[in-house]
């Protein structure tokens, strides 16, 4: 159950001790198929191709570009992230934990300071505020990394020589084999009709 959930997030990619889910597609040589990679030469071409991939209903795919493309998140149909809600949960957990911690400390080890009553709520507030901020910041950073599948040592896309040029002067779309709609032939056809200059299969032979 948990293994399935972790696999869905691709956790095995950066936690090698986790079991890899079985491959859906393999090549003739037996290597696992990571997905297909399509190359484009202009931002406009990749923008319009992204719209077509979005409309075809794919969910596990990405656009690669050497620079930010204005409006690409709409062309890709990216939804707003769930991160703020998780950060809020982290913050409120911090508020509650800080309160419990101080309540536990001041009832178990009474320390009269300046004659203030031990049950005074006033000194709790700064600590509750600080721990809320701390847990919110930690949640924001680490959940953001987790949602992005980071950190990881390597990515199968780096095996493609063409992919290396997307940090210079090329644009690319990759559709992953873990996408439920994925089929190597259909994906290739879609990307070719969307105007890709080349489409190649990327293997993940680990």
């Amino acid at each position, binding site marked *: 159950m948990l293994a399935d959930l972790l696999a869905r997030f691709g956790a095995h990619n950066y936690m090698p001790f986790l079991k890899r889910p079985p491959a859906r597609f393999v090549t003739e040589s037996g290597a696992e198929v990571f997905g297909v990679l399509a190359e484009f030469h202009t931002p406009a071409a990749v923008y319009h191709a992204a719209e077509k991939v979005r409309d075809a209903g794919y969910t596990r795919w990405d656009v690669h570009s050497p620079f930010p493309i204005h409006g690409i*998140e709409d062309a890709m149909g990216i939804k707003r992230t769930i991160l*703020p809600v998780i950060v*809020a949960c982290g913050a409120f957990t911090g508020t509650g934990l800080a309160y419990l911690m101080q309540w536990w400390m001041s009832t178990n080890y009474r320390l009269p300071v*300046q004659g203030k009553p031990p049950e005074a709520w*006033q000194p709790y*507030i*700064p600590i509750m505020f600080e721990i809320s901020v701390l847990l919110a910041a930690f949640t924001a950073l680490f959940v953001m990394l987790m949602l992005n599948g980071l950190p990881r040592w390597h990515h199968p896309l780096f095996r493609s020589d063409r992919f290396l040029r997307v940090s210079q002067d090329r644009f690319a779309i990759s559709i992953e084999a873990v996408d439920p709609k994925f089929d190597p032939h259909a994906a290739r056809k879609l990307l070719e009709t969307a105007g890709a200059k080349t489409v190649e299969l990327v293997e993940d032979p680990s």
Partner: protein
Amino acid sequence: MSHAAATTSGAHGLHADHHGADLSARNITLDPAKGKTLSLLLIVVGLAGLGVTIAGGFAVGIKHAVGAYHVGAMSMLAISLGALFMVLAFHLIGAGWSVTIRRQFENVASLVWLPAIMAAGTFVIEVATGGHLYSWLQKGAQSDPLLAAKSDYLNPVFFAIRAVLFLGLWVFLSRKMFAYSTEQDRTGDKWLTNRARFTASWGMPLLALSIAFAAFDWLKSIDYRFFSTMWGVYYFAGSAFVSTAVVVMLLTFIKKQGRLEGLVNEEHFHDLGKLMFAFTVFWAYIGFSQYFLIWYANIPEETSFILARKHAGWGAWTQLLMLGHFVAPFYILLWRPIRRSMVALSLLGIWFLFMQIADMVWIIRPMVYSEQIGEYLRQLDQGVPVTADPIRLQHIWLDIAGIVGAAGLFFGLLIRKVYSGQLIPTRDPRLPEALHHRNYV
């Protein structure tokens, strides 16, 4: 068309027609004739409120009337000073997104003379009548060693000099910023933006100091025994909070009449909502810090301020401020769809305006009957039946009249101002940035 002209118009790779944004007179001006009726109505209501306040001064007592009048004046002053701060801040940081909403901040700021003169007028009344509210003006008050120690700062002559300096600075800054902006509308001189930024660079620190010291003089000195170095920031936090709310209401009022189509949209309201959220939190942060230090140090001169607002019916008022000025707006403004809805933000804006007035009432009003609060606390302490009535709820009409008086005049003149000119600075070099503004989070 020369080559130089072509490059100037496309300096940011944007077209001169601002991507079809409607800058026609129909979209960026209101009909001045329509505004006259509304503004006249508000001014008449305001004058009536002031008249009732003066009548109340004779009927109930000058102390109560001056307190009510001062609450109104200081609330309206907070709105103007907050708007002036925003205008200076926008210029200082070179904000592009706010160009289409800046004129409304300038309009609100340019009226600073009215509440400033009204609030300074309280001092004139107080000197003439022998210090009902400012108890340090009373005869024989100088025999109190607590006041004698402060008399180098807190004396009528220096107080009056400071009041003139504050007034001069605020009127100069607000008129200057308004003039830069409207002159740019006429001439299109882009360098006016740089001059405005230069003025803001020296204006901002002076504005910060003047707001702090005006708050010391016009609010804190009502109880001259009290100390709080946080006081100036506390008043500033409230003023930034309420001025954003007023501008949101103003923009919604304009948008509801079919103006500013495509110029001010939910992206701008989203950012104004963020500012409202930020200053709600900032106010609570400063308010709590002030209370926390007083609680820890436990010095009688300071705790008496808190004690008066913890008992005698003011305890509920304090809780109202904690809930209504911070907790409720915090949880409401946490939701993105609310920050993006101008109707929801405007409803909150009305609430914010009430909370700012409630904050001023919380500061000023317990001082009006401070002896009765002392008597109330003494009776409570000794366990005898409590007979002192420090609140005088039967005269609440007088408090309302004082607030309506100041608010009616202020908003009456504000409506007139809004109707009389352009609703956005049309030739600001950063206008395209505001038209393309978008929030990604």
